[in-house]
């Protein structure tokens, strides 16, 4: 009985094991969200089938819609890949929004400072600057968590708010477009150097270099997490800070690294949002969402749905990007605002993190306890639940 209890406890302990979606939970969560969405459509007097059909057609039905979806997917993928890194290290990065904003600001500032540089120099430079801006905004909460034991959920949320204020200040002041002199200034930059425009990949569409870049980053992060010693260390720290520390790993530095890298990825998303935009400037409406389109949060959705695996996150970002694009078409077809998609994304998150418990509970009932404890979650062999979680999150 004691043994049974101990094993049972381990199953419910939370490393990032608690955040992993299994092949079972994923379709169930998606289905549940779709059903609730259908009920909401019905309640609003719209035909769910017509609505969903328009959504899928609009998102994936033609070459144009596919490229539009890919463009929407890029920020989600970059943020999501960063989330994979952070969550694998068991650091809950809620600061994507702020990191995107800082990345956008840093790259914009560089493009304004040295507009004359040729594209092949300027584009890598703005990408680096954006990654650095985001990395700084991740490193701060990382260091606060590692060295001052500050809850990273709170510090990243607060830094989101600070980032928006920095953005509003810079875009209304130092970085503002002064060419409209005499009028009240719009809080936006002037059109940034055309040398920094991200090259378009397919003529006649908006699909730009950012899409290739994001996929390359995802593959690189996958290789980093599973093929390098540093990546191993990061995942080990995520599974158990206690055990990693006992094994001589520098736990604190690893936590800082995880949040810094996550911030850098989100920062890259910020660069893409500025230099891949149609207006080629950075604009603020006073809120984070106005610039990011909530990619900092939706990237979390994509990463969770991709099982915290960068390669699967490529697929899931494409799906969620499609939801964003298709939402517009659904709005036209059944007159239901695209805000429905935001609500559905929220439901997906809730279902993904809730459903795993239901599954584990069912498994506990069906199988002898020792067998359940030894089995690994299907998506990722390294994700064994039988390793005890970190003391900060585990049960006492």
């Amino acid at each position, binding site marked *: 009985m004691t043994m049974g209890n101990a094993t049972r*406890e381990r199953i419910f302990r939370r490393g990032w094991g608690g955040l992993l979606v299994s092949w079972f939970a994923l379709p169930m969560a998606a289905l549940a969200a779709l059903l609730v969405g259908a009920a909401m459509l019905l309640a609003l007097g719209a035909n769910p089938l017509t609505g969903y059909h328009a959504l899928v057609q609009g998102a994936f039905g033609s070459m144009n819609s596919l490229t539009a979806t890919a463009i929407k997917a890029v920020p989600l993928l970059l943020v999501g890949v960063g989330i994979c890194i952070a969550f694998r290290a068991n650091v809950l990065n809620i600061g994507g929004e702020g990191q995107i904003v800082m990345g956008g600001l840093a790259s914009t500032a560089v493009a304004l400072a040295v507009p004359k540089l040729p594209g092949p120099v300027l584009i890598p430079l703005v990408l680096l600057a954006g990654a650095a801006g985001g990395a700084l905004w991740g490193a701060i909460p990382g260091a606060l968590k590692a060295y001052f034991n500050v809850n990273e959920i709170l510090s990243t949320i*607060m830094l989101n708010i600070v980032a928006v204020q920095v953005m509003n200040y810079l875009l209304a002041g130092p970085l503002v477009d002064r060419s409209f002199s005499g009028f009240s200034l719009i809080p936006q930059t002037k059109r940034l150097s055309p040398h920094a425009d991200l090259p378009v990949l397919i003529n006649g569409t908006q699909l730009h270099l950012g899409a290739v870049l994001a996929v390359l980053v995802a593959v690189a992060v996958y290789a980093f997490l599973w093929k390098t010693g540093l990546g191993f260390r990061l995942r080990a720290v995520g599974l158990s800070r206690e055990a990693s520390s006992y094994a001589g790993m520098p736990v604190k530095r690893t936590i800082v690294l995880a949040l810094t890298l996550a911030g850098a990825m989100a920062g890259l998303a910020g660069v893409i949002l500025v230099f891949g935009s149609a207006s080629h400037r950075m604009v603020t409406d*006073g809120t984070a969402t106005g610039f990011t389109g909530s990619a900092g949060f939706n990237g979390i959705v994509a990463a969770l749905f991709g099982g915290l695996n960068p390669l699967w996150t490529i697929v899931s970002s494409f799906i969620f990007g499609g939801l964003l694009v298709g939402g517009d078409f659904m709005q036209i077809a059944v007159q239901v605002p695209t*805000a429905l998609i935001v609500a559905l994304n*929220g439901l997906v998150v809730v*279902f993904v*993190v*809730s459903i795993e418990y239901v599954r584990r509970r069912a498994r506990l009932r069906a199988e002898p306890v020792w067998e359940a404890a030894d089995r690994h979650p299907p998506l990722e062999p390294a994700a064994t639940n039988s390793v005890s979680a970190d003391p900060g999150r585990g049960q*006492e």
Partner: protein
Amino acid sequence: MSRFLTITILTATVASGIRLATPFLLASLGETMGQRSGVLNLGVDGIMLLGAFGAYYTALHTHDLWLAVLVGILIGVVMGLITAVISVTLKAEQGISGIGVYLFGLGMSDLLFQKLVGTPVPISSLPTLKIPLVGTIPGLGKMFFQANLLVYVAFLLVPVLAFVLNRTTYGTNIKAVGENPAAADSLGVNVARIRYSTVILGSGLAGLGGAALAIQLGIFQSNLTQGAGFIAVALVYFGAWRPLGVMGGSLLYGMVAATVLTWKTLGIIPQSASDLAAMAPAVLTVVALVVVASRFRQPAALAKPYQRGG
């Protein structure tokens, strides 16, 4: 003359600071109760948005502000029940499920607003309630005792909740469940029931906070809160899980917002400087997080679902 003007501006600024602090205070007092019992509810902003829309919509159609407030609270209570099911019964990772609830509230409130209202129409605001005697004190009366009822309710809740937490059996149970649920459980305290009650109470207050925001502004729009709910969560840490500390943090936000507004309207300092000043509370909160993390200990079981026999 100029001296008179200064005093008038000062009283008006303090009064509006207190008013602006009210939605923060209501939401973060509610969050304090949940966190004391070990539940981190990150969905506050979404719940506030839904409460705000519910209150706005009700006020728009019935012109009954008290019914509107009630609807805001009820929506909060329902969302609290859902949050409790997710975090207590289904034992989801609270840092993430809260983001889900936030996105749901953000999308849902916007969806309903666009579908049911469309163009924002202002609603009437709450009448000012002048407290007899103290309300007539020059200066001080205008600062503290001529506000709407929701302001009084929010600030009265501070001592009330402090009393509940520190002087009642229910409060002791809340703290026990937040510190050591296994021990509380072994003494016969129903952990799940306590956590359900605090989360529902807290979300009800978040709904009320949203309603207060919408009614004070007299309007609803997409993302009306602009992250106020997230600030409310941070204010609980700012106030080191104590109602009085939470009140201090809320007042800081309210006062700075009111001061910056006054500066902007009067044009005393350049726009850019007031933008910088608006940054102060958030930066201060980050600093406060560091100080609180080193001096105070969060409830030991915060954000950890309880599993009997674990």
